């Protein structure tokens, strides 16, 4: 059994981030875009935890606590906005949310 190295964690983090990024880029549903955003956030926290573990310091871990706290608040606000949007417009597809342009 091989133990996971720092590179494995960073690679995993990069892959998760890329998935999230392309999700934001390509998906059309606001809810999915929002989930992709969260995925990118989590990917970066994973990298922080990994660095913290392999450096033997607590800096990264402390950061992660703060990020999770803020992210929780942000998710609450973001989801509330999306719910309000759906109530108002009966859609969450970004293609149809272009009132400012027209």
């Amino acid at each position, binding site marked *: 059994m091989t133990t996971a190295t720092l590179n494995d964690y960073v690679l995993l983090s990069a892959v998760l981030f890329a998935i999230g990024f392309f999700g*934001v*880029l*390509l998906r*059309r549903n606001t809810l999915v*875009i929002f989930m992709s955003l969260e995925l990118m956030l989590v990917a970066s926290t994973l990298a922080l935890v990994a660095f913290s573990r392999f450096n033997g310091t607590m800096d990264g871990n402390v950061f992660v606590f703060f990020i999770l706290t803020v992210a929780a608040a942000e998710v609450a606000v973001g989801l509330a906005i999306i719910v309000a949007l759906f109530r108002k417009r009966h859609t969450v597809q*970004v*293609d149809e*949310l*272009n009132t*400012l*342009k*027209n």
Partner: protein
Amino acid sequence: MLQHALFILLLPLVSAAVIALFLRRSGGIAAAVSTLTAASIAVISVILALQNERFTASSEWMRFGDFAISLGFKFDDLAALMLVIVGLVGLCVHVFSLGYMADDAAKARYFGGLSIFMFSMLGIVFADNLFMMYIFWELVGFSSYVLINHWHEKQSAADASKKAFIANRVGDFGFLLGIVMCYWLNGTVNLTELAAKGEAHTLVFSTLLPLLLFCGAVGKSAQLPLHVWLPDAMEGPTPVSALIHAATMVAAGIYMLCRINVLMVPDALTVILWTGTATALYAALCAITQRDIKKVLAYSTLSQLGYMVAAFGLGSLSSTHRHGTDAHTVVFAAGVGAAMFHLTTHAFFKALMFLGSGSVIHGCHHEQDIFKMGGLRTRMPLTFWTFTIGVAAIIGFPYLAGFFSKDAILYLAFANNPAVFALLALTAVLTSLYMVRLWKLTFLGAPRSDQASHAHEGGLTLTLPLVFLALLSLVAGYTAFYPNVFSGVFDLIPVAHGADHTIILITSVAVMIVGAGLGFTCWQSAPTDTLAEKAPGLFAALAALKNSFDRAYDYYVAKIQQRFALFVNFFEQIFLAGLIVRGLAGFVGLCGLGARALHVGNLNAYVYWFLLGLVGLWLFATGVVTL
């Protein structure tokens, strides 16, 4: 005293404001308000003058660093005399207007205009510094514009008012430059301080300074070459012509010259002298061919204003007093005395004649052509007799007002400058000529039109001012008649003694008889101008002389100024409007067009921009790209 002065200065302003704000539609009340104001001014100004209490007062209005503009009163004998003239003539004109403008549609505007004029004119009279005088100087210009333009439906009236305003602006610009120069040279424009500096011999003189200030008088008192507006200003109602364009506003130029007498230098006086003499002679020649009763009087006013300016330009006179064996010589500003004396008498008899002509025009149902009048002597006896007094006064009939003041000027000319004396005597001949022509054609003979044969005397408001002014024209020439409160001015009037006195007396009576005789015999009471029939060449020459200035100005404006303006406009279109204004706007528009292309309205597209921005930031942070 100061309160009284302040009261009569502000009263007409209040009256004008009340009329403008509340009484626009009620002409009758407006007329009453304005006339009562004029009456109060007349009464209080006479009281102020008679109380013989002279004062100066001033308060700071605004300050820029070391430079302060103050508003103040300088009430000396000169101002008191002018105040009384403005007050009395103003009252007469207001009363006359009650009758003359009774049926006018825009009565409120007319009387409001008269009030604002009274305010402006009193401001000039009281002003203790040149800046304040300039402010009111422009205000009389404005009120003159409003009143000439009273019948603005008439194109000629609208044109005349614009002409008056523009011609005055030209002169006023010189006046303004003069004020700036006065401050630059002497550090003050306060008349009292200037006089004090003159006493202390610390005044800085310059030939240019009085000439620049004189520009203001050239415009306002209609001297050559800016006289063109005054004959056209006769488009205004006749009482306005009497008040503004005969007695007071046009005399303000002479008053201003007397105010700044201390700044005068011999060279400047020579220019002023010849400008006045030329105007006097030129206008007298023009008056001979006029058909319009008001135009004759307008040119006569021009000529008399030229007389006053010439009198001022003749400058001071030294007189030798003998007390037993010792003689001492006194130099005194005889020019000021003679000019102001003639201004005073002229204000009364010219206002009388203008109001007389207004009475004639009113009686003849707005007929102004003297060749269509005639025979008014029996139909309008009161107007005839008062007008006759006015004519006699202006041609210098012995022992009437004009006789004394004209003699004073002739004597001064005789003593200082024989050439000017000859020209002024010639002008006096011409004055008698055209005034008697006017008088004969209007009042004598048989009526030459229906209007004239049905002419009738106006009401009491029309005749009362005539009688009052006729009385003043009879007595205004006697300096003894005035209470001893104007001595600051009247002591300066030159009086001929001995042989000089005889020469002047003979000359003045001779020129009057020659002129009046020629005028009476040369023109027949006919519907056509006798001069035009008997001597068409001379008539055409005089008419061409009259038109020469208008032609020259037309040519200048149309051919020179207009072309220059088009040329400048071309540059303006290319550089200012084209390159700078349109160019800048176009550039900003282009930027907007580019920025708008980025705004596609698609959330995914914005993520690409976000990515691009991130890459850019990363490149900058790693130092690959530097700004």
